[in-house]
């Protein structure tokens, strides 16, 4: 089982924990046995020396029990935390290369449930299934051997009781709940997803009066969880009833055989007490077993979900041997590039040729959905062409390490994310070593200066989830400030002026397209702002090819168009 390998960072600790746990419980049993023997023997008024041995035993077990239990708990918790941390980091590690092309096949709620609940469940395999089973097995063997030494018939009865509580009870509980438990992980993930929908969609849903219907959806999923829980409740009840029955059989049966043995004189009084009282202590170790058995089906399904996620292949694979990043200045060239998002999907780009010498600035326009952003994804290597090649400084992008590509090529996506932290952190992402002055300067350059000055907390202002405390245009410009900070030699700007008023838009693109910076720019846009500042305007046609822009959309004409826009707005 692959889940077994998740224990690697803590394997030795788990073994130690199980041994300590078994030792603690065995000490408990031994304590009960010696104490019972001692008290009955004492009532027979023997020589003091006859008791010495047992007195030492009672003292010893009285100390080892808490000590070993302490050890068990410490070691097991440490192991659990180690495994959890490692597994969570592994999930992260595997999700990262899935973005963006493969990630949208996953619901975020599913991913979140995977990280939180499924990881917990897989870890439960060790702490709540394997360890208790190991402890129970060791303690059972110990107690049965002890009983066999004192009274073989008692051992047989004890074994029957232990089998009932330790084998039959867990199996019965598992059988009753398996189907329900297998539904548990998916149901939890579905509820997480629906909850996120409810939270994320709240404004749209409330405004549309659809909140009630959405709530009904969530509550239906809640009902499903409730049904699963009811099933598992019966299973847990049956499991613990059978376990209690096993204990009952052993206690009663041992008392019975001890009584018979004593009658025929095979059993001394103190030993009789041990045989009667030992089973009481022995069953403490078996109490968690039905629960563990019920859990196992859940662990299995959670692990299957987690591993399916970990097995997903990214859209772009890192080359086995990558080439080093060539020296700048960089020429970016696309040669007869064809691209599609999935093997079965249509060709979005179908024979794109484009050569960008250092410092060249082009705008790409085209109908919505024609593939402009796809072109951007190719340049950032979020997608590999299915034919043709994209080269940077003469090296095929596929031969470069992805981070190296992005060291040279910057990007502002049409929906760049604002993180739920403060302004400083959001900007520093692009340049971790930048000081505050530099961050503020970047804000000024994208026209956020006045806005920034009005913030009482300055760079420490929290921007809210997904930048909720910013206006649409402020979000856009924050993303542009990032690309200015990162200051790569080549940048791809996807709709940089969307959501901005014409004046801000013009000022911002002037900054980004500043010829003096020597930046190579690919600007994907629908808007006229900045079209007068580029070297060339291209149009991506519906058939996926790049053509020179139609007459009337030349950089020179764009200026006139701009004027007309300004005149009309005034």
């Amino acid at each position, binding site marked *: 089982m692959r889940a077994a390998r998740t224990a690697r960072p803590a394997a030795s600790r788990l073994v130690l924990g199980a041994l300590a746990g078994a030792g603690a419980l065995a000490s408990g049993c031994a304590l009960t046995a010696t104490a019972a023997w001692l*008290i009955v023997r004492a009532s027979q008024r023997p020589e003091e020396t006859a008791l010495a041995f047992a007195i030492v035993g009672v003292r010893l077990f009285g100390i080892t029990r808490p000590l070993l239990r302490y050890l068990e708990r410490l070691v097991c918790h440490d192991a659990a935390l180690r495994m959890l941390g490692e597994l969570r980091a592994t999930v992260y*590690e595997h999700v990262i290369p899935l973005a963006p092309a493969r990630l949208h096949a996953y619901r975020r709620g599913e991913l979140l449930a995977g990280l939180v609940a499924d990881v917990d469940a897989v870890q439960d395999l060790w702490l709540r299934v394997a360890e208790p089973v190991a402890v129970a097995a060791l303690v059972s063997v110990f107690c049965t051997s002890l009983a066999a030494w004192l009274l073989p018939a008692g051992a047989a009865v004890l074994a029957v009781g232990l089998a009932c509580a330790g084998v039959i009870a867990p199996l019965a509980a598992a059988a009753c709940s398996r189907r329900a438990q297998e539904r548990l992980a998916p149901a*939890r993930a579905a*509820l997480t997803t629906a909850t996120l929908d409810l939270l994320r969609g709240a404004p749209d849903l409330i405004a549309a009066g659809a909140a009630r219907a959405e709530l009904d959806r969530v509550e239906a999923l809640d009902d499903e969880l409730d049904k699963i829980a009811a099933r598992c409740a019966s299973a847990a009840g049956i499991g613990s009833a059978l376990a209690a029955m096993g204990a*009952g059989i052993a206690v009663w049966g041992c008392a019975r055989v001890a009584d018979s043995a004593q009658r025929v004189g095979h059993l001394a009084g103190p030993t009789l007490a041990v045989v009667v009282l030992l089973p009481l202590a022995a069953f403490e170790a078996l109490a968690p077993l039905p629960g563990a058995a019920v859990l196992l089906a859940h662990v299995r399904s959670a692990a299957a979900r987690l591993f399916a996620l970990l097995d997903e292949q990214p859209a772009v694979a890192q080359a086995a041997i990558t080439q080093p990043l060539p020296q700048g200045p960089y020429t970016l060239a696309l040669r007869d590039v064809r691209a599609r998002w999935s093997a079965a999907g249509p060709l979005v780009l179908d024979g794109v040729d484009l050569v960008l010498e250092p410092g060249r600035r082009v705008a790409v326009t085209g109908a919505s959905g024609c593939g402009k952003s796809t072109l951007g994804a190719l340049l950032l290597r979020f997608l590999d062409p299915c034919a043709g090649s994209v080269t940077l400084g003469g090296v095929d992008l596929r031969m470069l390490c992805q981070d190296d590509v992005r060291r040279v090529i910057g990007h502002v996506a049409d929906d760049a994310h604002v993180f*739920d932290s403060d302004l400083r952190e959001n900007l520093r992402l692009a340049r971790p070593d930048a000081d505050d002055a530099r961050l503020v300067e970047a804000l000024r350059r994208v026209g956020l200066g006045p806005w920034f000055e009005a913030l009482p907390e300055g760079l420490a202002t929290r921007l809210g989830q997904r930048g909720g405390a910013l206006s649409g245009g402020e979000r856009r410009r924050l993303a542009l400030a990032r690309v200015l900070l990162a200051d790569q030699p080549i940048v791809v700007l996807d709709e940089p002026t969307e959501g901005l008023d014409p004046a801000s838009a013009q000022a911002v693109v002037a900054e980004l397209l500043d010829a003096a910076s020597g930046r190579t720019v690919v600007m994907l846009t629908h808007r006229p702002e900045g079209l007068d500042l580029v070297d060339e305007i291209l149009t991506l046609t519906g058939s996926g090819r790049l053509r020179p822009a139609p007459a009337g959309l030349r950089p020179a004409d764009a200026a006139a168009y701009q004027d007309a826009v300004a005149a009309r707005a005034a």
Partner: protein
Amino acid sequence: MKPLDPRLLRHAAAARRQLCVAGAIGVAGAVLTVTQAFALADLVTRPLQASGAVRLRGPFIVLAAVLAARTVLAWAGEASAYRAASAVKSQLRRALFRRVLEVGPVRQDTGSDGDLATLATRGTDALDGYFSRFLPALITAVVTPPAVLTVLATQDPLSAVIVLVTLPLVPVFGFLLGSAAARRNREQWSTLTTLAGHFLDVVEGLTTLLVVRRATVQVAAIRRAADEHRRATMATLRLAFLSSAVLEFLTTICVALVAVAIGLRLLSGRMDLRTGLLVLILTPEVYWPLRQVAAQFHASGEGLAAAGRLTQILDTPAPAPARGAGLPVPDLTRASLRIEGLSVDYGRARPALATLDLRVTPGEHLGVAGPSGSGKSTLLAVLLGFATPSQGRVLIETADGVSGLIDLADLADLDLDAWRSQIAWVPQRPWFAARSIAENLRIARPDASDEELDQALRSADADRFVAALPGGTSFVLGEDGAPLSAGQRQRIALARAFLRDAALVLLDEPTAHLDPDSEQVVAGAVRRLARGRTVIAVAHRPALLADADRVIDLGLVTAGAVG
């Protein structure tokens, strides 16, 4: 975090019921414990008594009955605990969901979405342990020790006195243990929810992180954070476990004290074996439940921490104008909007919107322009009842056709659900359900026919690309409208508004992300839509502003001039 959180009982009726059930089971359990001890003491000692006629049938029958009863109790206890846990979880979750919708979209102190979603699922699930392990242990600890102590007092007063004297030690260490555990649980829980919120944020911004080469750094950060968390937790746990070990050791010593006293008396013949054995079997039953409570508090505290957080959210009064005061809403096809001195302030040096005066008559098509950040979206949020004005108000003015009297209603007093039912809204950043396109459209109007969907898609210039998708309108979207392009998503959002058929249409940059051709199509459709409706359209682009009857510039309003 209290062991028995009254807030939990208040918010979940199922918890109150389970408390009674568990109480009954606890009492029965105490009776069985005592009876079993008597039976066992008889079974061990009677055969040893010299008297020949040993009658053991009685104790054997009693023991069998006790053990059978235990089996039944085990079943009842476990099944009812899990069932109750499930009911409580469901009640808490539903209360949380309702609350979320009541508060509306402007949530502030309730935590991030990832945090809340984790709280609602994984957090409430942790209550299983609370109900199945902690609560029974707590009740046993309340019921059993006094019962056993009473029996001890009748059987052997000396032992009862020893137990009574040593008993107070248990709560002292139990408290140490419990408070350390409670702290750790709270920390553990907040670490987990923070991690969840963070993970969600990272997953959503993964493309952005990849672009700036910060994605892999996150993994190292997670590892480091997990390691630090482990160290901190283990430090607390070491203390907690140590006090637990000391507690166990102490109770062992207490039992040993009793045992020594018994042993001495047995040796000197001042006590009979049956009483001695009975006392020795019963004494641990006084300490054991108390120790168990402390231990389980630690084990099931996570659920308690989560429940505490949940009830805390439920207990905070809703800050926003949740539902409105519920007055009936005037018909918007005949009512004017009168905005008087409206300001919205988010605590920044400049208000988001300052003293806006505006009147919109029914059927008017108002264009709203203004630089980025001048409060355009904020104005729409106020009209939707999402943002609370810090000053001023929105009045709805209806002229009575018969009497000619003018009726004024304040938006804050209205039934907001009914008010919103007359509004269609295209937000600046629309939300998409990860469902089919048809389902996404029907959010605006659940009973819309297929023809109406097609019509709405045509108006939004979305018909052609939707038809080209595999399955057409039954094409299922991913998160955030993936894999549609930006302009395609915008057009789906527009189609929703066209489908809605509302008297007041609020458009926030409806033609953002659209190419000039699509923009023309949409502008034409908005023109048609505007007939007989009031439209307030935020726009930067001339194509849409050109059609407006009137354009106000919020940049000028905030600068002092009146639009």
